[in-house]
């Protein structure tokens, strides 16, 4: 049984703000096995990007954190900046969402590669480094002739491929991809996804793919974790979760995904909660069609609902609901203003 290459234990990441701490990630536990692609989905503002950056320790100064992100037996959050910097690149890689601004405009592509290779593998000669870079770039479909050009001479899609090449040139064990294709058009998106799919075969890289596009999750991921208001409400094999969602939020999320077969649009009423003072107990209860009284008062248990599937909802543990609380939660009709 493979040991997880990266495991998150009760991870909390809070940002300081004038109104109090924003609880962007509020107790997430997740594992990543070598060569496995885990999708992390959720509405925007649910804290998935924060989690992604937290894995690499790329948090702004004012961010507080607790819990553990263990990699190679060490808790990344406890590492000193120098040690963390040594990990980033050879061990942990990251692919960002907007490719246009992610390359230093004044440096040629070759300089980007030489810089990162010389930092992590100092004994590499210039020629070897160049060969290595060109080989990775060829994998991304970028011709060697353009190796010495400047970032502004590439299209968005090309730049994203360069970013991926930069992340992979050191063959990291774990790569976090934060919405890699959101800024790209559908055709380019397909190419990028094929490249990502190759990762597992060629490099046995574990990939945490952060996206709000469930289509990608179904197609490219082995397992998926559905995140809502800073917590992972459901995680399990991609196929099972996307076809038979256990958690009401997963179900609602899938129903509001537009596909060729969509007849009429469905959307989840209300808006993502304010992470400074999130709703009590189960955070989805204000918008959950199956909400019961207990959901608003007591924290739902995390229940194993299948092979390697867990979901955090009282529906799976109706027997433990204290008496009288199982009645559906009456809710005043949501005023239109509140709707917006």
């Amino acid at each position: 049984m493979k040991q997880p290459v990266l495991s998150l234990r009760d991870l909390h990441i809070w940002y300081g703000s004038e109104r109090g701490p924003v609880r962007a990630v509020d107790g997430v536990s997740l594992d990543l096995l070598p060569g496995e692609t885990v999708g992390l989905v959720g509405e925007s503002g649910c804290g998935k990007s924060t989690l992604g950056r937290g894995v690499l320790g790329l948090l702004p100064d004012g961010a507080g954190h607790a819990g553990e992100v263990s990699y190679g037996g060490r808790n990344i959050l406890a590492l000193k900046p120098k040690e963390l910097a040594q990990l980033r690149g050879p061990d942990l890689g990251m692919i960002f969402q907007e490719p246009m601004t992610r390359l230093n405009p004044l440096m040629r592509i070759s300089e980007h590669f030489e810089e990162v290779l010389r930092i992590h593998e100092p004994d590499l000669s210039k020629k070897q480094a160049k060969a290595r870079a060109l080989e990775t770039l060829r994998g991304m479909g970028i011709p060697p002739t353009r190796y010495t050009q400047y970032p502004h001479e590439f299209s968005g899609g090309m730049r994203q491929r360069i970013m991926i090449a930069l992340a992979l040139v050191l063959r990291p064990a774990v790569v976090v991809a934060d919405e890699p294709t959101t800024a790209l058009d559908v055709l380019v998106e397909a190419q990028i996804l094929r490249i990502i799919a190759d990762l597992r075969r060629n490099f046995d890289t574990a990939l945490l793919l952060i996206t709000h596009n469930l289509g990608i999750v179904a197609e490219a991921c082995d397992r998926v974790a559905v995140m809502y208001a800073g917590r992972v409400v459901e995680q399990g094999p991609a196929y099972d979760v996307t076809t038979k969602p256990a958690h009401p939020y997963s179900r609602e999320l899938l129903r509001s995904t537009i596909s060729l077969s969509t007849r009429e649009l469905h959307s989840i009423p209300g808006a993502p909660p304010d992470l400074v003072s999130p709703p009590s107990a189960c955070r989805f209860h204000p918008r959950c069609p199956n909400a019961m009284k207990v959901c608003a008062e007591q924290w739902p248990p995390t229940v194993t609902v299948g092979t390697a599937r867990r979901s955090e909802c009282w529906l799976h543990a109706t027997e433990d609901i204290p008496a009288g609380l199982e009645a559906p939660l009456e809710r005043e009709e949501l005023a239109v203003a509140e709707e917006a």
Partner: protein
Amino acid sequence: MTATTSVTGTPDKAPEAGPPKRRGGLLSRITAPYRQSHGIQRFMLVSGTAISLAMILMAIFAPLLAPYGFDTYQDADGRFPTQGEPSDRNPWGTTVQGFDVMSRAIFGARTAVEVVLLAVAFSLMIGVPLGLISGYIGGWLDRVLVLIMDALFAFPYLLLAIVAAFLLSNTIDSGIVVTAIAITVVYVPQYFRVVRASTLSAREATYIEAARAIGAKPRTVIARYLFPNVIQSVPVIATLNAADAILTLAGLGFLGLGIQPSEAAEWGYDLQRAIADAGAGIWWTALFPGLGIVLAVTGLTLVGEGLNDVLNPTLRRRRVDRPVVQSRRAVGSSAVGPASAPEVEEDAGQ
């Protein structure tokens, strides 16, 4: 620091002119920057304002504060000594001309403030409307104005002031007006450029189209809609304009082209006359006018920089203290639930 383009960081990128903010009272709009600032910015803004206010008050109440007039050379018991040591009769000593240094310094503030007010008023009255009209109407008028203003930008502003003072000194006899005009010639392009930039970006805003749609004449569009919005970045320029006005006044005074001592007390002139004293170990005649100039300009620049930091959002670094993270377990009783550590299925994964 007349390179105002550098003030707002990236040249010609005007702050986004969103719809007019809710009509908070004038006081709240003035104190807004102070409330929003924190840490170093607040220190700069507050200390800058304090110094500038002190200068303005000193200027207004000069006759009360100063022991004597700016050109008094004697009191009840006879003449002041020339280059006299600071004594209780002359707290800051006397100048080579037998004037009281303290009174000259205090009245110097009055002259400085007069020139600043005149210069800023002239520059505003010409620069802002031109910028508004040029930005809003565009066309060949805009191109011509931009060309002229850019040409004026090429002039070293002190040289322009010197030549203007040299040319006008015979026609206009008051040194203060001449210096103010000299500075205006230099500062109109600054206002023009910034106001035009923000007018251009504001012009496309929806609420402007809406105003036009309901038939507002260009004049009212500019006055009622564009103006309050565009004026936002002007205070920063105004403070630097004022700072430069004082420096130019002092520069002209040093070169002997500024205000004659018989007309008013001027720091630049007093400092120039005190250079020989300083060489002779008489420190008080040079120190106080010099200090006056430095303090006045520093005060104004501090306000300018502080304002610029507050108005320029990209610079603000949220200096919020790190929150103390309590894991859910420690959260109160309300959330009762299983231990946060999820049970890990042993046989996960294919």
